[in-house]
């Protein structure tokens, strides 16, 4: 419960996120998605004051009992606005990525290797000597991700990382994150409104409404829920097309609603052949 708030931002949350999976959190505004992210990263209760009931554990660490500067090494948090995540004190991207490592007191040689590895991983080698303040939104967001990854957290939490990016920037961020899961076995929790991307990239989807978890499961099972759409979380354009077809009576009730382009193509083809 935030200070000054009348109602808690989250209620009855019980969630278990296994290692090495890509979890997307979807839901309408004010559903408590960011609060969930801040609680997982330990910013609640360490940064935001208020009341936290219950227990949050990240990779075995109790967030209440562990200081924030240790938690950030376990769970890295990425924010919406890429500009605000740039430290503002560095002249090149390379130095920017090293900022966290400097704070940890890592020796210079090790830092160099780590920075180079991380830039390779996120695919921003070509930006190394540019000024971090003079990049496009997508580039800046990937620099922000690299800056966090350089500290090798086990879990990456992203709070609407693509909301200020154009479609190309969003794609860059999504595929960078996806490749981290396959190559680094990272656990990712991403709050995201772009459901078409979520459907393609995420392993699991958590739907939140009014501070509670509405559903938790595979993208195709969660994103097609009627309750989620009615709560104002939207739906993918493929689901919408199929739902419209269902409302018009041309979509059999027993057919599942599609969430990706491929599923939609397949489903409409079956519809056409009458299978």
């Amino acid at each position, binding site marked *: 419960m935030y200070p000054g708030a009348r109602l808690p931002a989250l209620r009855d949350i019980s969630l278990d996120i296994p290692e090495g999976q890509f979890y997307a959190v979807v839901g309408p505004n004010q559903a408590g998605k960011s609060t969930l992210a801040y609680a997982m990263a330990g910013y609640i209760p360490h940064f935001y004051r208020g009341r936290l009931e219950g227990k949050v554990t990240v990779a075995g660490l109790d967030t209440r009992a562990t200081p924030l*500067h240790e938690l950030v090494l376990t769970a890295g*948090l990425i924010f919406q*606005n890429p500009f605000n*995540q740039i430290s503002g*004190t560095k002249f090149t991207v390379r130095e920017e990525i090293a900022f966290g*490592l*400097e704070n940890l*007191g890592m020796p210079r040689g090790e830092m160099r290797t780590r920075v180079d590895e991380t830039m390779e991983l996120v695919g921003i080698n070509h930006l190394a000597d540019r000024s971090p303040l003079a990049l496009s939104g997508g580039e800046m967001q990937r620099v922000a991700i690299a800056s966090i990854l350089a500290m090798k957290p086990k879990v990456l939490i992203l709070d609407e990382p693509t909301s200020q990016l154009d479609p190309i920037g969003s794609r860059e961020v999504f595929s960078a994150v996806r490749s981290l899961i396959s190559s680094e076995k990272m656990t990712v929790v991403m709050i995201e409104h772009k459901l078409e991307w979520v459907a393609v990239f995420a392993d699991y989807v958590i739907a939140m409404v009014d501070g509670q978890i509405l559903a938790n499961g595979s993208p195709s099972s969660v994103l097609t829920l009627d309750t989620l759409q009615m709560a104002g979380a939207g739906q993918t354009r493929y689901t919408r097309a199929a739902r419209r077809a269902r409302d018009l009576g041309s979509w059999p009730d027993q057919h599942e609603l599609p969430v990706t382009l491929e599923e939609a193509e397949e489903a409409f083809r079956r519809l056409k052949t009458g299978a």
Partner: protein
Amino acid sequence: MAEAFSLYTGQESLIHKLHPLTKLTLAAFMLVGSLALPGPWPTYILFIAVLVPLALLARVFPRLLSLAWRVVLPFAISVFLIQGFLWPGGTPLVAIGPLSLKREGLLFAVTSVGRILMVVTSFLWFALTTRPDLLMTSLVQRGLPSNLAYIIVATIQIIPRFQQRASTILDAQRARGLETGGNLLQRARGVLPLVVPLILSSLVDVEERALAVEARAFSHPGKKTSFIEIAESGWEPLLRWVVIIAIAALIGLSIWLRTL
């Protein structure tokens, strides 16, 4: 996107390659020299014999002059007029109606202009040849608290962003019909709709920025390291000590001359 706000020119020169602290002590030497030496002329000698060669060596002399005269010239004109004519008593040189130009007043004006010239140009010389982040890194290595260093460098770098945002808000409010021209009262009325969103949006930014810096383990206890290595020639520490001793000698000399 906004570039960094800094006078640093990023050229290649012997001076640019010097350690920031070496340049800091040299600038301090010129500053102290101009203030500590008595009489009008030593500051000009210092300017010609030390600052000009250093600026030429750094290849920033033209830029330095073009920046400096904007500050020094208005000051010089007003000091010459005010001190020259309004000096109480003194020896009159030329009389223009009821006013007369005084010798003592002119000498005082020459001294003040020399000092302001040295203060401005030694600062500019330092700012034009030193990367602010390297300066801060070297100061942190010498024990400056890193929080303080962060605040200073981040502030310098954030200024253009702030200007950019101010002009965005200005455009937005104009589009809604805000009057920004006209007489003083109309302009004053226009300030509030600009300042309020600027401050509020900056406060929102501050929160996110604080979180983001925290996410980079900023509050991690223990010694921080530095990614960039600040190159330094072997003779530079010696040079610094020589300059520091010279500064101390100048201060000593000035005190001694005053007690005579």
